[in-house]
């Protein structure tokens, strides 16, 4: 099996700060890579590097064999890579429907306004936001705003989906449906990467987990193995969490 999206030796330096260092990763169709790490570990920078929002200092990004290193974000999007933002970025002056319509419209192929609106409506239906189509994004609850963010990414009809803390701010009761939705996307054959703080969510859906620390990969592998790794516990989880994690995994 070949990876849909590949990164090799991806690095980014901001002035004196090494935000991401020599990151390698492979995203496969139908598989979900979970990325965890403390704030400032370089998780969001990694996504920005993959999607072209930040130009890497060195390293390569390849999608389907095409080199997209340093390509502009819209080119990466056209190549089938969609993303969500950690801080949701709705177009506030537009309705929810128009927000998704924009995403459905510029996928690389030409779609008419008419067709895009239809497609947008279908996507909203899938994430359960159809009823809010005419609302302003500012009127949405936190959970619905996250749904909108996801709908916008899905409307691009991507093959790779990079999720930046989509579960943040969701109530316990809202996390499970969201995970079910993500799981269904995986079954549809999307290559997924999910940056997350909610660790038990990662363990529930991830096929592989990667831990970032100070911009470097601390470890990677099966969720259970990674979460019981001593270095991860020391650097990130802290002993108290590790104890609970162990109990839960058992």
């Amino acid at each position: 099996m070949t990876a849909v999206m590949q990164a090799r030796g991806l690095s980014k330096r901001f002035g004196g700060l090494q935000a991401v260092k020599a990151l390698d990763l492979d995203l496969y169709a139908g598989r979900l890579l979970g990325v965890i790490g403390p704030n400032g570990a370089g998780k969001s920078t990694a996504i920005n590097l993959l999607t072209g929002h930040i130009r890497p200092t060195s390293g390569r990004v390849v999608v389907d064999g095409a080199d997209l290193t340093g390509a502009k974000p819209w080119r990466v999007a056209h190549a089938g890579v969609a993303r969500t933002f950690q801080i949701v970025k709705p177009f506030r002056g537009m309705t929810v429907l128009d927000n998704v319509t924009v995403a459905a419209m510029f996928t690389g192929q030409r779609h008419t306004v008419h067709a895009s609106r239809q497609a947008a409506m279908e996507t909203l239906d899938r994430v359960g936001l159809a009823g809010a189509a005419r609302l302003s994004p500012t009127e949405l609850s936190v959970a619905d705003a996250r749904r909108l963010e996801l709908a916008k990414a899905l409307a691009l009809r991507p093959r790779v989906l990079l999720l930046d803390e989509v579960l943040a701010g969701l109530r316990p009761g809202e996390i499970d449906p969201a995970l079910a939705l993500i799981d269904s996307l995986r079954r549809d054959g999307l290559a997924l990467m999910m940056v997350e703080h909610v660790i038990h969510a990662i363990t529930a859906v991830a096929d592989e987990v990667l831990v970032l620390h100070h911009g470097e990969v601390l470890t990677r592998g099966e969720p259970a193995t990674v979460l019981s790794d001593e270095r991860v516990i020391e650097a990130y989880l802290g002993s108290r969490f590790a104890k609970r994690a162990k109990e839960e995994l058992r």
Partner: protein
Amino acid sequence: MTLVVEDLHAGYGRVPVLHGVSVSVARGDIAALIGPNGAGKSTLLRAATGMVRVSRGAVRMDGRDLTNAPIETIARAGIAHVPEGRRLFPGLSVRDNLRLGGWRARNEDMGTVLELFPRLHERLDQVAGSMSGGEQQMCAIARALMGRPDFLLIDELSLGLAPVIVEEIMARLGQVAAEGTGILLVEQDAGHALEVAQRAYVLENGRITVTGKAAELAADPRVRAAYLGV
């Protein structure tokens, strides 16, 4: 001597976020407000200090009504707010940031807060924006304390900090409270907060769903599952 938030309704524009929240802190106590991101924790603090308009309910300090007073009036009344994202003055030195903290009280004496956070001592002339996250958080709290507030509201203290640093700062907060300041601590990461606090509130979707002694909440299975579980 208490800070009381009563039946507070507030939101942004036409979007209500808080639906009747009541919280109170006494001087010398620490109260923790926990809940998921987006539940309205920050909005509660912002409404209490005048940064967000209150549509119904009241904010009172020692009986004095501060509802919808201008931000600076509330600050001058003795309520300090360490806001989300710390909001240090990035281009100014730590010294100038601290001076600004003491601006209202005309307090130029940095000795007390530097004792509390000795790390800041060697950073006094460094530009605030260039420090690490933990140091910035200490600077933000020190800046708030420079105003010698009666109440200190802290938003997401642990965000982005290494657990070790969080523990260090939490310990200092205990000291601060012991000297008579009331602290309202807003946290997504409930573990530490419930350890230092006397009282705790769980805020979900703009409503208080659980209140009680911090220790009891820490033992509550639902709270454990939702906010302490892995």
